[in-house]
């Protein structure tokens, strides 16, 4: 047993048993709650008036109920969090019930999904919650059996007295356990005794999902609810001038057409009716900003790459001197296009703005922020706004923005009715908040022995602030290094996209390092290992990644993929640290009918301890498919401010037949979990590009690969 490092304050509050009995335990998602919590009465619980931070309930029938506070979008949090509680509790997993909590920032902290941060944030809190309840159950059993608590063990929802062979179920102890004082400190399990954590556990919502139960925002149908779609300007940089809605209003089922900001909203009695009527709107727009085309972006990027007006992000040593004395200089530029997020469930939200309060419901990754923004817009106390969280049909960062929540709320406040705002796929693809395009220029200086003595990166982004991650590898491993950035302000709206910045940056860096290794006449893995050795022995400046963990995943990927040992197989290597975890990948490519085909991907991941092997495996496979699919096929381009693509007929997403075999491995080092929602994606583009180079001799310096002239001449 390992004891907690910090003596915890009173983070748990026992909630008195209800009339029907049972143990209710409120637990805090923070370890810094200063205010002591009090035991509240069962009448308060019955009235639903308890102010606790979260809860775990154990009823006399043995059912353990755990509230899951974070939005679920396929990252499997609704299964993995309760697994952690159940592990420390030694609960019978078949009796655990998970309930999605509504937005309540008094009860829950960090009720958002993004940045792969949920698991690291809550790991210890969840364990303590389970261990606290277990402690109380054991104490209750000790009293009942009149034996010392130390003579009792727990397993599978039972307290066991080994000496006498007696067993008591958690259910029958629940009410007595509720009378045990809440411990201020509990012992946690030694991870080597984990039975549930690290195993493959099926998603707790499987049954609902495979039987078509209403789970998502679009499935919301409330009493008296109207349906709405909004016509937004067709180009970024345009604003609304005039609307002729006569024809639309005359169409069947249409209740109203209202205008706010640059939006023309068609409100009606069904999705199809508003969709049809929207097409009958006659709208004029006028220009209010530059109407940018992709050709403009290409030109702007090239200008900015030579701009004297840059922000220096990191500077080590003397780069000019290093490049002057270099035996060889390698210089390359990489570019990636705009991307929409394309979650399968398009944006939508329900809003009902009444005199006395606001009801919101739907899919969002940031419920608290969304509520705050609605409160501000409507000038209403956030306390008067309820927000019901639905399961998200994907997010990928798109639902970190609350634009569609605000639209729904504003519309409801104007029409004074409950309304579900629906974005069509076309709205979703053309409606903005994209992953912005970016261009990188890399330069490397090699000495006679092929050592990298100088490294330069200039990133030019759009609305990105800093399109680099200046402290990532190889920073710290090169004596003379300069990382700079320039940003272009575009009227096209942009926002975070799964693995923000690193989604493209890692591809470019890892592909460039492959070029440098090749020019240095070194094996790409050996080249990276030499740099890491240098960083370890004589670090340059600050190092913000863990060298040993990075080497750990490199070694594992090399071992599992048979790196360099396979005859006739073209392999490409990539390794990246992002969002607290480390992933190395090897891609394998074959040329079939004149085109390179990715046949296999290997991934070696260090995300700390794996909680749910099933979820983690799929998270890595999904991340690789996401990374590979977008690198190969996806692009959003613009003409005069308007996207050229609008739906899956002209915007290409990866499909089943294009997916290679993926072999996933985890480093088992006992470190607390560091998150896995994003880290598998960034290295993929590089591993694929480097394998294609190996197979064809062609360097792919632009995404999507499929459009590159290099590939057409294979």
């Amino acid at each position, binding site marked *: 047993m390992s004891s907690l490092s910090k003596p915890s304050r009173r983070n748990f509050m026992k909630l008195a048993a209800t009339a029907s009995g049972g143990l209710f335990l409120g637990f805090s998602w923070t370890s810094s709650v200063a205010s002591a919590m009090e035991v509240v009465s069962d009448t308060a619980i019955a009235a639903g008036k308890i102010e606790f931070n979260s809860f775990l309930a154990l009823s006399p029938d043995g059912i353990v109920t755990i509230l899951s506070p974070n939005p679920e979008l396929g990252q499997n949090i609704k299964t993995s969090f309760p697994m952690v509680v159940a592990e420390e509790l030694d609960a019978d997993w078949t009796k655990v019930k998970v309930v999605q909590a509504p937005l309540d920032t008094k009860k829950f902290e960090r009720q958002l999904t993004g940045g792969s941060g949920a698991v690291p944030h809550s790991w210890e809190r969840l364990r303590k919650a389970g261990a606290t309840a277990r402690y109380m159950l054991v104490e209750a059993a000790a009293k009942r059996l009149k034996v010392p608590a130390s003579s009792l063990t727990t397993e599978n929802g039972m307290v066991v007295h080994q000496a006498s062979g007696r067993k008591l179920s958690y259910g029958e102890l629940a009410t007595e356990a509720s009378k045990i004082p809440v411990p201020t400190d509990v012992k946690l399990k030694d991870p080597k005794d984990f039975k549930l954590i690290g195993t493959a556990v099926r998603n707790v919502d499987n049954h609902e999902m495979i039987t078509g139960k209403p789970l998502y925002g679009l499935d919301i149908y409330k009493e008296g609810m109207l349906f709405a779609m909004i016509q937004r300007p067709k180009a970024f940089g345009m604003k609304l001038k005039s609307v002729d809605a006569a024809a639309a209003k005359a169409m069947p089922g249409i209740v109203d057409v209202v205008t706010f900001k640059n939006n023309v909203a068609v409100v009606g009695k069904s999705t*199809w009716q508003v969709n049809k009527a929207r097409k009958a709107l006659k709208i004029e727009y006028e220009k209010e900003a530059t109407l940018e085309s992709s050709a403009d972006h290409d030109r702007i990027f090239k200008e900015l790459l030579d701009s004297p007006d840059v922000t220096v992000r990191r500077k080590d040593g003397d780069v000019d001197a290093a490049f002057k004395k270099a035996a060889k200089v390698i210089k390359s530029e990489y570019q990636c296009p705009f991307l929409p997020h394309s979650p399968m469930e398009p944006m939508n939200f329900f809003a009902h703005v009444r005199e006395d309060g606001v009801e919101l419901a739907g899919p969002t990754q940031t419920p608290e922020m969304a509520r705050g923004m609605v409160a501000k817009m409507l000038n209403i106390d956030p306390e008067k706004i309820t927000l019901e969280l639905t399961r998200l049909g994907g997010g990928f960062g798109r639902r970190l923005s609350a634009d569609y929540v605000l639209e729904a709320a504003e519309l409801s406040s104007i029409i004074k009715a409950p309304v579900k705002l629906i974005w069509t796929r076309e709205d979703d693809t053309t409606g903005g908040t994209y992953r912005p395009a970016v261009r990188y220029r890399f330069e490397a200086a090699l000495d006679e022995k092929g050592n990298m003595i100088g490294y330069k990166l200039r990133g030019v982004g759009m609305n990105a602030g800093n399109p680099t991650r200046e402290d990532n590898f190889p920073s710290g491993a090169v004596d003379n290094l300069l990382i700079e950035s320039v940003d272009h302000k575009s009227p096209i709206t942009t926002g975070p996209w799964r693995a923000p910045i690193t989604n493209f940056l890692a591809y470019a860096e890892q592909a460039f390092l492959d070029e440098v290794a090749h020019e240095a006449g070194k094996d790409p893995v050996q080249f990276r290992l030499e740099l890491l050795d240098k960083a370890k022995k004589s670090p340059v400046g600050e190092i913000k990644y863990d060298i040993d963990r990075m080497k750990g995943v490199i070694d594992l990927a090399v071992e599992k993929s048979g790196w360099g040992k396979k005859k006739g197989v073209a392999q490409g290597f990539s390794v990246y640290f992002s969002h607290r975890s480390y992933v190395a990948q090897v891609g394998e490519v074959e040329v079939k009918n004149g085109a390179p085909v990715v046949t296999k991907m290997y991934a070696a991941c260090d995300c700390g301890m794996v909680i749910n092997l099933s979820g983690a495996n*799929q998270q890595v496979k999904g991340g690789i498919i996401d990374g590979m699919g977008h690198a190969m096929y996806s692009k959003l381009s613009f003409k005069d401010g308007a996207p050229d693509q609008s739906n899956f007929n002209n915007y290409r997403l990866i*499909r089943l037949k294009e997916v290679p075999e993926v072999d996933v491995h985890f480093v088992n080092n006992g470190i607390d979990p560091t998150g896995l929602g994003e880290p598998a994606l960034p290295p993929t583009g590089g591993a694929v590009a480097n394998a294609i180079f190996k197979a064809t001799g062609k360097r792919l310096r632009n995404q999507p690969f499929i459009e590159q002239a290099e590939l057409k001449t294979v």
Partner: protein
Amino acid sequence: MATYKLQINGRTYEADVEADTPLLWVLRDNLGLVGTKYGCGIAQCGACTVHVNGDAVRSCVYPVSAVGTSKVTTIEGLSEMGDHPVQLAWDEVDVAQCGYCQAGQIMAATALLNKNPNPTAEEIDNTMNGNICRCGTYHRIREAVALAAKKTK
């Protein structure tokens, strides 16, 4: 507007809608059968897949007026208890991530297995290639279809 009598999941439903309304929106907006999903509206993604007389169709482009007396099956009607072999395989393989595309995937897989209980890997790929899963659960979809085929034997 006209009234349509529809045979869905072994029951008769009535809907008062315009003739060009896609079956998808009749199911969702009028009949409360929300298991069938909207993903693209132009027959590209397969999220809206249902069976019409046993054939997998894209309900987002299937006008209600074309249904006639055909028998429609949606995800809700695949089995009473959610224990159709394809559903069981989907649970066992733990296919879903966000889950949004999965009703369509299951309906596409079921239609395939009804016609071809023993599909080859290539036949599975050919059918399932029509359904997009943005989360990238493609490996598990392949695996679950193969498992369902085994279960049906």
